[in-house]
């Protein structure tokens, strides 16, 4: 796929670099020209200075957040893939449980975060569970859709040889759903960092969310911005790494059609 090769070249990335540069300049200039006070909206240079000074601390907490996010991503995605496989294989179970799960998703996870802390205590369990809850349903829905959308003409190839349902599922349905599964993983990767930070905001003793709470109590807006910028960069790196894996998955599980 030449398309993917292109996207890694400098030429393909130049527009993004330029856009970042322009936005950074705009940020710096606007804040200076309008004379916005630092505790309302700090300049970019102030945020960078903050990052430089407390870089070690930020990095430490960022790594904790990203680590938790990775773990949550792993557990949450496995849960949604497993459930999706069961749902795709047994329609009755899907029809019984899917509406309940969708209704459950209407509850804002942020509201539940403090209770997770009370139920499971501060620590890994409550954080990972929160991420799982956040990523489970989107991952599930995308995967279920992919598993059900087995193409009719692909199915015919197996219909004419009267294949058994279990072989059909293993050799046709699951491989055909791989692109959708890749999309589900992409989606949950982006969500998992948010989930980790949300759980930390509600009173965990470390992580990016913890730093944000501390800094905002002290009206230290440059520190809040510095931490959040670091989190954005970290989550971008995590997402890019995941994306590398899912791109390979998409390429490997391609289908070829030729003719009429």
């Amino acid at each position, binding site marked *: 796929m030449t398309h993917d090769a292109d996207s890694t070249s400098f030429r393909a990335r130049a527009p993004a670099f330029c856009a970042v540069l322009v936005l950074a300049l705009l940020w710096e200039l606007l804040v200076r020209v309008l004379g916005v006070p630092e505790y309302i909206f700090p300049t970019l240079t102030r945020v960078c200075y903050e990052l430089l000074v407390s870089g070690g601390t930020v990095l430490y907490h960022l790594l904790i957040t990203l680590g938790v996010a990775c773990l949550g991503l792993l557990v949450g995605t496995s849960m949604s893939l497993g459930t999706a496989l069961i749902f795709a294989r047994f329609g009755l179970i899907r029809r019984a449980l899917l509406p309940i799960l969708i209704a459950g998703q209407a509850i804002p996870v942020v509201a539940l975060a403090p209770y997770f802390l009370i139920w499971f205590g501060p620590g890994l369990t409550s954080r990972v569970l929160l991420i799982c809850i956040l990523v489970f349903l989107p991952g599930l829905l995308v995967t279920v859709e992919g598993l059900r959308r087995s193409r009719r003409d692909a199915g015919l190839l197996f219909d004419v040889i009267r*294949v058994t349902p279990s072989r*059909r599922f293993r050799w046709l349905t699951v491989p055909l759903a791989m692109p959708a599964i890749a999309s589900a993983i992409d989606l949950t990767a982006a969500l998992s960092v948010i989930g980790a930070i949300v759980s930390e905001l509600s009173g965990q003793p470390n992580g990016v969310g913890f730093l944000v709470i501390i800094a905002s109590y002290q009206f230290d807006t440059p520190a809040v911005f510095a931490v959040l910028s670091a989190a954005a960069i970290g989550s971008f790196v995590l997402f890019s790494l995941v994306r590398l894996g899912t791109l390979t998955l998409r390429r490997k599980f391609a289908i*070829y059609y*030729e*003719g009429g």
Partner: protein
Amino acid sequence: MAMSAERVNVWLGAGKPHHVVRDVNLQLAQGKVLSIIAPSGAGKTTLLYFLAGILPIESKSNYLNFSFFGQDYNTFSKKERVGFAFQRQLFFEWSTIIESIVQYQKASGLAPDKRLIKQLLSGLGIAEAEDFRPSEMSGGMLARAALARAMSISPRLLLLDEPFYGLDELSRSRCLQVIRDYVSTSKCLAILVSHHLTDAAAISDKIMVLSSSPMTLLREVDLTPNEKSRSLQEATKIAEDVRALAVKLWLSNDSRR
């Protein structure tokens, strides 16, 4: 007759069904090749889907006295493995051609037989393709790989829906020979749908000329029995006669409507 069906009717589509196949009778003996000639979009593929037992759920069909080696239609469509070379060849990029055909044999409930696959591939002139992935192959190679896949499950019924898409003249005649030899020696039944009348003439024992919308049988042309594929010269001669006949029949059928 190994396969027979009378007054086959097929309607497609939910809601207001569309009458695609009307009152088609069909009989075919073991080791014989039947070709189906009809205008584009007439419903040849639909008829093949009926004969393969894979009509879509939202379709409707009826027929009289269907028999395939004594099986009724229900048993046939549940039990009998059909070799089908589809118009669109589907291959998965995650396996090489030979892996993919081996898996197809396993999916059919057969023991994998790599020797047979290699023999088929080299017979069709693509011996080198066994370790290729579909993205490394041309359309013509994929068409032949699909043919090999259909024959690799040793079917008693072989259905070929425009199987030579993207193939040059020489490769086509080679494939026709392989198909004809395969049908004669394995004593299976084959039905070929093709727009190339010369292809049909080269290997058929019988050619059915059908009309479109709905597709009805206009004429059956019995050819002199043959075990091998006919020479290009002979096939061209037959094809010309059949073409003249088919055009005449289609025109008069059109004017009657």
